[in-house]
């Protein structure tokens, strides 16, 4: 379960407004025809185990995009999240390279395995974003890329002879890196999130958070949240997609502590006899996974341990469906033409 620093206060408040959360029933909460009382054990619940076995065999795809000005620690953070060298940093990218003149989209795929479960992880980097003197519309290449992935999936779906498992290159999650100025969001941040929050799940994070003291952090997060609210920007987990009260409670807690102020590192140091990931400075060692130092652990638990599947589902059931509906509407309700006749079709939304 998700653990947050404000957990106790919220729980106390919640229990006054809401009765004790009910035990999750064996039958699903959606209304069913006849609620037959079981006369004995049938074994329906073993379907969970069957699904688990299947998932383990097939493995699954996860595509995460990182967006932010150069130098905010995007590559390091992704490496820290997945505890492996999966970012641009590790595949031949040299930090001495020049900033590209336009926004480039670089996707790097890795297969990582844990506990018998295989994940095909793709990290999509966007070097050049926000680094020019004139950054007008620099989010357009990113929007185009995301829509192209939806288009690819749509074409596969409407194919007469479909593949059994359509390769999923759609962006499930977009980590947006906010510069830790301590003041407020920058105009570019607002514009980007306004345009893209309707198209993809955006998770804003405050990068290089070791530059702010505790008070500065709290103040900054509050200000950022308020700015996002005032400008109508819904980051993931979006309020409108909370399915039931349980979801809402859990997600409310998360939304209250976002954006997470994180620190990334791929170096280990010895602290109190243990080896920890951290940053060494003349005045102390910043421990990445220590909750009193930064909120990296919260971000990791959120993205990977509790909401990974939900990120994919929201992408498929909501963002992709929105795209699909728009495309079918544009086509007069007909699906787009089959692959043979439209080999070089470009998504021109």
């Amino acid at each position, binding site marked *: 379960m998700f653990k947050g620093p404000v957990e106790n206060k919220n729980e106390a408040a919640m229990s006054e407004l809401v009765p004790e959360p009910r035990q999750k029933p064996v039958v699903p909460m959606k209304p069913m025809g006849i609620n037959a009382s079981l006369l004995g054990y049938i074994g329906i619940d073993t379907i969970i185990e069957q699904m688990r076995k299947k998932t383990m065999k097939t493995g699954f795809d996860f595509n995460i995009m990182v967006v932010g000005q150069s130098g905010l*620690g995007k590559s390091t953070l992704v490496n820290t999240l997945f505890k492996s060298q999966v970012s641009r940093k590790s595949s031949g990218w040299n930090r001495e390279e020049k900033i590209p003149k336009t926004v480039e989209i670089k996707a790097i795929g890795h297969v990582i395995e844990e506990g018998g479960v295989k994940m095909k992880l793709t990290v999509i980097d966007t070097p050049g974003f926000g*680094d020019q003197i004139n*950054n007008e519309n620099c989010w357009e290449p990113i929007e185009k890329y995301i829509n192209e992935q939806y288009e690819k999936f749509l074409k596969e779906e409407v194919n007469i002879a479909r593949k059994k498992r359509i390769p999923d290159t759609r962006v499930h999650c977009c980590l947006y890196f906010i510069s*830790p100025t301590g003041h407020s969001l920058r*105009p570019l941040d607002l514009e980007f999130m306004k345009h893209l929050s309707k198209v993809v799940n955006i998770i804003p994070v405050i990068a*290089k958070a070791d*530059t702010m003291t505790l008070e500065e952090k709290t103040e900054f997060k509050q200000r950022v949240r308020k700015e996002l609210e*005032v400008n109508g920007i819904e980051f993931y987990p979006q309020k409108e997609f909370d399915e039931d009260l349980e979801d809402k409670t859990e997600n409310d807690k998360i939304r209250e502590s976002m954006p997470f102020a994180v620190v990334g590192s791929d170096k280990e140091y010895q602290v109190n006899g243990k080896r920890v990931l951290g940053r060494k400075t*003349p*005045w102390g060692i910043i421990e990445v996974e220590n909750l009193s130092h930064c909120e990296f652990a919260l971000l990791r638990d959120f993205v990977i341990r509790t909401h990974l599947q939900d990120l994919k589902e929201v992408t498929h059931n909501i963002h992709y469906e929105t795209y699909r509906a728009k495309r079918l509407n544009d086509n007069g309700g007909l699906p787009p033409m089959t692959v043979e006749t439209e080999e070089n079709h470009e998504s021109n939304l």
Partner: protein
Amino acid sequence: MSKQQPAQFTNPETPGYVGFANLPNQVHRKSVKKGFEFTLMVVGESGLGKSTLINSLFLTDLYPERIIPGAADKIERTVQIEASTVEIEERGVKLRLTVVDTPGYGDAINCRDCFKTIIAYIDEQFERYLHDESGLNRRHIIDNRVHCCFYFISPFGHGLKPLDVEFMKAIHNKVNIVPVIAKADTLSLKERERLKKRILDEIEEHGIKIYHLPDAESDEDEDFKEQTRLLKASIPFCVVGSNQLIEAKGKKVRGRLYPWGVVEVENPEHNDFLKLRTMLITHMQDLQEVTQDLHYENFRSERLKRGGRKIEDEEVNKDQILLEKEAELRRMQEMIARMQAQMQMQMQSGEGDSSAVHGHHV
């Protein structure tokens, strides 16, 4: 800072002694009475720690009622120039310090016009001084020229950004640039070294002229020479600013309190704050001199060459010429189009009746 003590006023009875060795004393006394003026400009994106650093340097609060605008407000704003003056007195020496702030720099999505306002301001101060200097009554010329510009580089990047390069290239012939990296507590020592080197390399690569500390004279003592050498080797300075007093190791120091430790502002092992302050104080005179002898003289010769025509006039002339040329181009294009249309009509009517076609050859 250990300079040789001025020679004592020796006995005028000593043979061969004239007494003008006492001149520096007199100058010193007069300057102290008159007080010093210094204008420092601060440029950098918002949130890089400029105001905190200025407050820390001069142990004062220059921005008591500051409101930080939100992102939506920043979208509409252009770069402003805000000058605040403060009189500081220390041991009888008066300093009239003007800090010129440039809020809005680097905030917009399109920063192409970011530095026009700033350059205009610098030029305006030169213009005013030139005017005063050429005037009849030159007794009380106020020197508002910008003597030094602290340019703040972001500690989060990998080096200079395109905006940094363009801006510095635009003003390096007008003002002394001192590059500063604030919020340096975000960098480990190794990262700092790497960033400093990268920035120096890029400055050289683009031919940007930053302020160079003059070498110590050969007759200065070893300590001073060593100090100057250290200062020169630490540019650009990586600083941390703060006016909060934190308890550390039993005493109260200015610093920032983190869960993992305390960053001390005045600890040379933590950051270059002391070096920056030393440089500014010991070289205030030199900064003013370079502004006068180099940047101002450049400006003056440019202006006088142009023969009294102000820059705005020239630009207006250029614009006018452009407009005129464009209008003429349009007229010619319209004429060609008309002629072509006529030709078409002629061709068509020519096919109808087979008499000779009057072709207009353009």
